Structure formats: structure tokens, C-alpha cells
């Protein structure tokens, strides 16, 4: 009789341990995004313009270089950072300067940002400057979008802005 009572107590304690465990492996649900919001992702991977001009080397300068490294011109490597701005219905939602990668700032500029925006119709303006020598924004996309709740819209760049 004592054994049966003990086994029943064990069963009860196993239940006390496992039932909350099973429950908490999937419940309660977590609301990650309000139902009236949509998601706008900006993901840009783009190399900015080289800063500066190539300069021609003189004959003496060329001769001073090792034979296998002689070039007619000396070209800078550093690239321009990207100046990015996103406006939704005329209101600035995101603005950033994305530096080039690499120790010598000669790599690609990469960025990613996820923004939660109200679903519905919006006027979207995305603009970017990728050349410090240029004034203002030299790339721009302006479009009217109709975002459904929970819709994911991606703005990327490949020889111009694209919305997917």
C-alpha cells in the first residue's frame, strides 16, 4: 500500500514537472508585430564611388617602383560612404551614413534595417548619395505603395533602387 502511495506521489511530481514544461514549450503566444503594421526592410550592398582622381606617375617615380609593380597611374582606393535616407509620407523614417568596409575603407558598404510601418497607402521616397564629390542625393526612388498588414516589402539596390 505504501508503495502504491509512493508511486502515485511520484506520478504527481512527474506531472508537476512535465505539464508546465510542455505548456511553456509553445504557449502562451507572443505578439511580435501589431496586426495593423507592415514591415519595410532596407538592405543595401553597394560600393561607393572612389574618392579622388588617379594621378599620372612621372618617369622617375615609375622607375623607383619594383619592376613588377610599375603603373602609369597612382589611383586612390578609398570609397565614398553611402548617405541614405528613407521618407514615408514626407516624414524621415531612417537616415544613416554607411561607411565602406575594409581597413582602407575600400570595400563595399552594407546595411540592413527593419522598420515597422502602419499598413495602408504611403508615399515612399528613398534616396542615396554614393559619391562625396556629388552634391545632394544622386540616386532616388519615389513610389506610391499600398502595404497590407504583415506584408514585408524589401528595398534593395542594384544599379538603382528596387522595391520587392
Amino acid at each position, binding site marked *: 500500500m505504501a508503495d502504491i502511495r*509512493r508511486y502515485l*506521489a*511520484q*506520478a*504527481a*511530481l*512527474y*506531472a508537476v*514537472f*512535465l*505539464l508546465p*514544461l*510542455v505548456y*511553456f*514549450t*509553445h*504557449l*502562451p*503566444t*507572443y*505578439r*511580435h*508585430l*501589431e*496586426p495593423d*503594421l*507592415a*514591415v519595410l*526592410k532596407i*538592405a543595401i*550592398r553597394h560600393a561607393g564611388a572612389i574618392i579622388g582622381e588617379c594621378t599620372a606617375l612621372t618617369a622617375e617615380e615609375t622607375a623607383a617602383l619594383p619592376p613588377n609593380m610599375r603603373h602609369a597611374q597612382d589611383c586612390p582606393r578609398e570609397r565614398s560612404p553611402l548617405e541614405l535616407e528613407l521618407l514615408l509620407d514626407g516624414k524621415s523614417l531612417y537616415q544613416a551614413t554607411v561607411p565602406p*568596409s575594409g581597413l582602407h575603407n575600400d*570595400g*563595399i558598404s*552594407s*546595411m*540592413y534595417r*527593419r522598420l515597422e510601418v502602419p499598413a495602408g497607402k504611403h508615399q515612399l521616397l528613398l534616396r542615396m548619395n554614393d559619391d562625396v564629390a556629388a552634391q545632394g542625393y544622386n540616386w532616388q526612388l519615389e513610389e506610391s505603395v499600398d502595404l497590407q*498588414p*504583415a*506584408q*514585408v516589402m*524589401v528595398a*534593395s539596390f542594384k544599379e538603382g533602387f528596387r522595391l*520587392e
Partner: protein
Amino acid sequence: MKSLLKRGFNQLDALFSKAFTPQWNPLYQLGGLSFFYFWIVAVTGVYLFIFFETSIGGAYSSIEQISHSQWYLGGVMRSFHRYASAAMGVCVTLHLLREFAMDRYSGPRWFSWVSGIPLLWLLFASAIGGYWLVWDQQAQFIAILTSEWFDWLPIMVDPMASNFLNEAALSDRFFSLLVFLHIGIPLTLLLGMFIHIKRITGARSAPARGLAAGTLLAMLVVSLWRPALSQAPANLDIAVTEVGLDWIFLNPYLLISNWGPGQAWAVLVGFSSVLTILPWLPSRRKKQGPVAVVDPDNCNGCGWCLADCPYEAVSMKEHDYKVGHKQSVVNPDLCVSCGICAGACPSSSPFRHVDELTTGISIPELHIKDLLALTESRLEALSGEGPRIMLYGCDHGSDVQRYQSDRVAAISMPCSALVPPAFVDYVLRKELADGVMISGCCEGDCHHRLGNTWMDQRFSMERMPVLRTRVPRDRVRLRWLGAQGTRQLGREMEQFASELGDESAAESVQVVEVKHG
């Protein structure tokens, strides 16, 4: 907080010991249970991997196929895989809290404590990787937040989150990488678990068989009743709005989601750092005494202290001057001054013909000669009527000092296994006391890991040094009741005294009868 936790554990210990017996008490083998759950997850994982397809379309559908078309095997395996990993998470957390509450994380025990911290990260990473593979809505939620979390680190050149922009951006190769990680990280975890227990003797890396069987049975029932299932399939073109979450392993995502990646890193790394330095933070706990000292004159190189040290702090070397003999050596970095070695030493016998008792190995805090002197002086001071009892106890178990009286001589020490069996023999043979009671931590939960186990074995003549056969067993009691059992110890001592009283009364009647006869 620590004392509150300790009290809570002590109360739970009593409840679980009553239901499971101390040998099966799951709270005494949380580490062993964690290992057991790991093996369940590993075995079921191998089975699931056979059917898993590493592709965007195949990941979700293959898991669904396993869960539904072979629910009786694949589905059960999947449920075991998920619930055992969750149970491991809970056991590991309880293990950490328990070791903290019971003050088993500082001094030479720092290594096990500190090596356990990275294991928490590896355990979470293993579990998260598993959820990711299913590629349902929860996986989508994890994928995006994990990548954004890592992208916050300045080491990332190309944002990892770019891989999850939309359905078009996702690649099959990603699932191959995930499978690789989901096998590699748990293997690293296993290696870490091995290192975690490396420094301790006889580490319990498996639970008692009965507990293991009960655990498997309970998990089978739960798996059949509420099988683990996937949520809706992931679709990166539609954001996850509401998601069923595993609150055991995915709780860091609440931080990332609500506070942002930077603060989540700060909280998680900060918390881990505090845990890591905890053994060296100031504390009100009793300072550890000086480490055990070997007396080469009295060490005969028997190796019993080596066999009994729970921390692998004792080793043997060539004797300093006795040719062909061995001698014990104490590693001060590992010794916790529990005194178990002194209790194991055959030289710790008060019957030895020496002017002053000395021994081969002892702790300076309570040298064996001091223990003898204390025993004799306390027993000689007893003046009450009725049976006299020598009560030995440990500083971590029942509070024996509370029962010091004119009939009871009580001595508390770092570990009850410091008492050599010869002391019990001596006390009874010299009629210094009518009975000897030794108490300590709960069975299976010794503060110094193996003290009460060794005592049980010594007194039942299974381990050297044994309690000699001439010692009347009815005059000796070993009771492992723990700190929560102090009151019960009092009751049992009264009972013991009453039994001893009955016995002496019976003996005196016999004597009277003989005289009249």
C-alpha cells in the same frame, strides 16, 4: 536570497525524498539528469536526422511527414527530442540555482562553476538551432531576430539578416549550415560537460535507474498525449505577427525584440559575467579552513585517503624517506578542507599506543587529536541521568549543537566522514557513552559529495576503514537528514536514547537475576 533559495530547496528535498526515496530524489541528481536528457536528445536527434531534408521546401515538409505519417515512432521521437531538451534546460537551471544556494561554487569548486557558464550558452544555442531547423513561424521569428542580434556586433561586414529578406533571398545551403551547427554545437556542449565534471571524483553523470525509467515513462505519456508539432510554415514575404514561443529557451528573444540587440547583448553578457565572477565575490559564507596536511611519519601509503577524496585533491608519490613506500600528497588548489581523508586514514585510531594521537593526514581546523580531545572532554562533562549519547554532525546538515545537553555531547565538523569508525569503537568500548549517533547531509546530497556514502559503506564494512564487528550495531545510528531534518534528528535521538535506556534497564535486570540465581 541565497538562504531563501536554500530553504526552498530543503523543503522540496524533503517532499521529493518522501515520494522518490533519497536514492531516486531527482533534486539530488540534477546534473546526472541533465546528462540523461542530453543522451535522449542525441539518440532521438540521430533518428530525426535520417528523415530530415536540408532544403527550403523540404525542411518543413519532412518534419511534418515524420510527425504525422509515423506519429507512433517519428512523432514520439520528435516529442522526446523537444521535451527532453526543455527538461534539460530546466534541470540545468535548477542545478545552477541549487549549487549557488548550497554554497557549492566557490573555493576549489570554482572550476566546475565557471566551466558551466559557457555550457549555458551552448545549451541555448543547441536548442535554438533545433527550433530553427523546423522552418515554421517560430523559426522565422528566431532567424530574423538572431541575425539582427548578431548584426549588431561590429565584426559583421555583410549583414546576416540579408539572408532572410524575403523568400527569394533564402538559400538551400543555409539549411546545410544549420544542420552542421545543430550537430557541432551539441558535440561541443558534450565536450564541455565532460570538462565540467573532470575535476571531481565519481561524478554522477547518470541518474538512478529507477528515476531514469520513470522519466522515460513520463515523457512517453506526455509525448503521446501532447506531441510536439510545428507551427504554420515560414514565409519570409509575410511578417510573423503572433508566434507560439518556447519560453524556456527563447526567452532571450523577448529582450532582443523589446529592448533591441545592443541591450540584449549587454544583459546576457553582463549576466554571464556576473555568474562567472561569483565565486570570487565577497560573501558571508564561512571561510574555508587551511588545507589537509600529510604527516609522513604516520602515512603508510595505503591510499585510502586518495580513494575517498571527492575532489581528487590527494595523489600518491614516493615516500620522503621510507624506501619502497608511498606517501599521500595534497593539492592545495583542489582541497576544500572537508576532512574526509582524515576519517579514511587507518592511523586515525585512538587505540594506537602513542602518547599523543596523530595521524597520516588531517585538516588543521580539526586535527584528529583535537577531535579525540573534544570527544573525551564533552563526554566527561555529561552529568545527566539516562543514556549518554555522543552526537557527531556536520556544518551543512542538521544542527547538532542544538542538542548539546547534560546527556548529549555534540560536535559539529566540516563533514561527518571526518569521524573515523575507530572513534565509535573507542567511545563505546571505553564506555564514555552509551550510544553514538552520526548525522549529516541528506543521503545522496552530501555537501562534500560523498561523505555520507563513504560513512554508510565504512559502517557496513564495505569500505576501509570499517567499523569493527565487535561494535554493537544497536548502539550506533547513522542518520542523514540534512539541514531540514534538524527537528526530526531531535525526535530520533530521543527515540535512540529511549532504546538505549530500555537496553541498559534490561541488562541491569539480567545482572540482578544472575546475582539472585
